[in-house]
């Protein structure tokens, strides 16, 4: 394994440990006893105490932290205080929605952004460029949840083409599931796509100014060929960095969007669990989100090494 990748792995692990510590400490400071919440307002004090012991909330901080980490490592996330079911299965149920949603949103983002970005760069300063870029300016300025609301108004209520929200699950057919995630995915994607399109455009323009582009032209390659065979791969580096960062935004966006479309995804689970003081769920969900973000950025970094020969990968 190359030193480059090894270094990234080490920092990845360190970041995850740091994240777990912060998440644990912050959530531990939450007011409102989980046991009290679960038992309801009229529970007797010793019933609450009994539950506290049962949930293991009486243990010292460090012990609980280590237990949690140990559980994480063996895949045992404990049981939800509220639902009584295993947190892992609870999260798994939600991931069935959030992961496809994120993938759909990211796919739409990337498709829209690359198309628009490359088109505008290739038509620099022409009418198409100006038009598309003005659209992206507006796209960036739209709050995604507002855009979502407008989409619901149009497609679900006026036209009745798509469902206004909710998620029917994948059992009734992939298409139904995709249909119910389409509007949320689009509203998540539009803003991100606008940003990414701009990044793509300027990255392509930047590369077009490079000397090697002129060299390629001097070999007799047409503008189009140069764009596809010489420019894009170079331009992908900044585009990928931003894509990695957008993934974090996208996950954050799902928290809001899942609330607009009442989708039972991870974001909503966090939201509800905090309201219910189902801390064990919150902690694991937040950790999961943080892990996803960190891993995506790690993957982006390693991908650089594949795309860009200047980063050593020989014994990867």
């Amino acid at each position: 394994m190359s030193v480059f990748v090894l270094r990234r792995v080490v920092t990845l692990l360190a970041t995850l440990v740091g994240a777990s510590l912060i998440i644990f400490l912050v959530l531990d400071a939450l007011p409102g006893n989980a046991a009290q919440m679960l038992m309801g307002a009229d529970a007797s004090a010793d019933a609450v105490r009994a539950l506290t012991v049962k949930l293991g909330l009486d243990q010292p901080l460090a012990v609980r932290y280590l237990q949690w980490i140990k559980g994480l490592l063996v895949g045992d996330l404990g049981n939800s205080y509220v639902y009584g079911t295993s947190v892992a299965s609870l999260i798994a149920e939600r991931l069935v929605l959030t992961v496809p949603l994120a993938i759909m949103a990211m796919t739409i983002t990337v498709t829209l952004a690359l198309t628009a970005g490359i088109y505008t760069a290739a038509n620099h300063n022409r009418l198409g460029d100006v038009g598309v870029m003005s659209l992206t300016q507006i796209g960036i300025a739209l709050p995604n949840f507002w855009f979502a609301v407008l989409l619901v108004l149009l497609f679900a209520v006026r036209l009745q083409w798509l469902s206004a929200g909710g998620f029917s699950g994948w059992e009734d057919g992939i298409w139904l599931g995709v249909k119910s995630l389409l509007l949320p995915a689009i509203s998540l994607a539009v803003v991100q796509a606008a940003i990414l399109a701009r990044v793509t455009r300027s990255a392509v323009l930047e590369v077009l100014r490079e000397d090697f582009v002129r060299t390629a032209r001097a070999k007799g390659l047409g503008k189009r060929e140069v764009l596809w065979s010489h420019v894009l791969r170079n331009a992908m580096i900044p585009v990928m960095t931003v894509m990695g960062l957008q993934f974090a935004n996208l996950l954050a966006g799902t928290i809001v969007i899942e609330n607009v479309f009442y989708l039972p995804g991870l974001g909503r689970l966090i939201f509800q669990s905090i309201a219910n003081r189902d801390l064990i769920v919150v902690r694991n969900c937040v950790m999961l989100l943080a892990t996803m973000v960190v891993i995506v950025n790690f993957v982006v970094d390693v991908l650089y090494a594949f795309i860009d020969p200047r980063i050593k990968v020989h014994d990867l």
Partner: protein
Amino acid sequence: MTAVPLLDVKDLEQRYALPRESLFRPPGQVRALNGVNVQVAAGRSLGIVGESGSGKSTFARLVMALERPTSGQVALLGRDLNRISADELRRTRRDFQMVFQDPYGSLDPRQTIARIVAEPLTVLEGADRATFGERVAAALRQVGLRGADMEKYPHEFSGGQRQRIAIARALITQPKLIVADEPVSALDVSVQAQVLNLMQDLQEQFGLSYVLISHDLAVVDYLCDEVAVMYLGRIVEQGRPEDLFEHCAHPYTRALLEAVPRARAGGGRRRRGSQAIASQSAATTGCPYVVRCPLADQHCREALPALRKVGEGHLAACHRAEAVMALPPAAVEG
């Protein structure tokens, strides 16, 4: 007179670690400087030539105490720059200043000329800008600019003028030594001449010493009393320019001289032997130039030649220096 030399460099070595490429191999090293000894007497100028990557700039940075050497010492007027306190070093800096290659990059674009030129003073004497005004104006006049230019910004000047500003900045503390790393190589031929003339004038006027780094032999020849030729972090030949260029004693110097194109009628093309480029990190036992040397023999491959005297004030690190000197002189432009 056994006066203390202005600059005394002893056994200077500098290595840089290359980024680690593999876990299982130690990181590579670049031996940028490989035991350099040199002295510069007050009022005399040293020119350093050599190909790209031979360690010229590294040498300049070490002389300016911008980096700590791996080993060896740099003494200015007898004080070892790496031994004295940070505070003392700052005060000592009054005596040696630097001029850089890139006239566009060496001036802070956000500062006025007055601030740029006064920079060495503000470090030494605090930020009392008012009293600096006169001195800045004087320094600017010395390099042929007007005092009125003080409130302008670098982008309002041409490359040649900027290099004058950089020289004014170096002059303002009235230093004894100016280290100039390729001061004219970024300038156009017609402007280059102006700056070179200026540097010569200043040397005459103030008795300055230059350590002048260049890859252009003619520039060094024009300005220096003594020339050192560097190759792969070592000085391979040293001496007065006329000795060096007329009776060079190292095959590398000769290759350099032969490579200089001659601007004259009927120049015609001269063949140069194709040469491999030696590696810097591989530590060979023999002469580092052996791969490119047309005269190399078995001895050269086995023993590292030391710098030795081959004539009056003329040193060379070559086992076969005499053979080289015996060759017909490389045609020199007249």
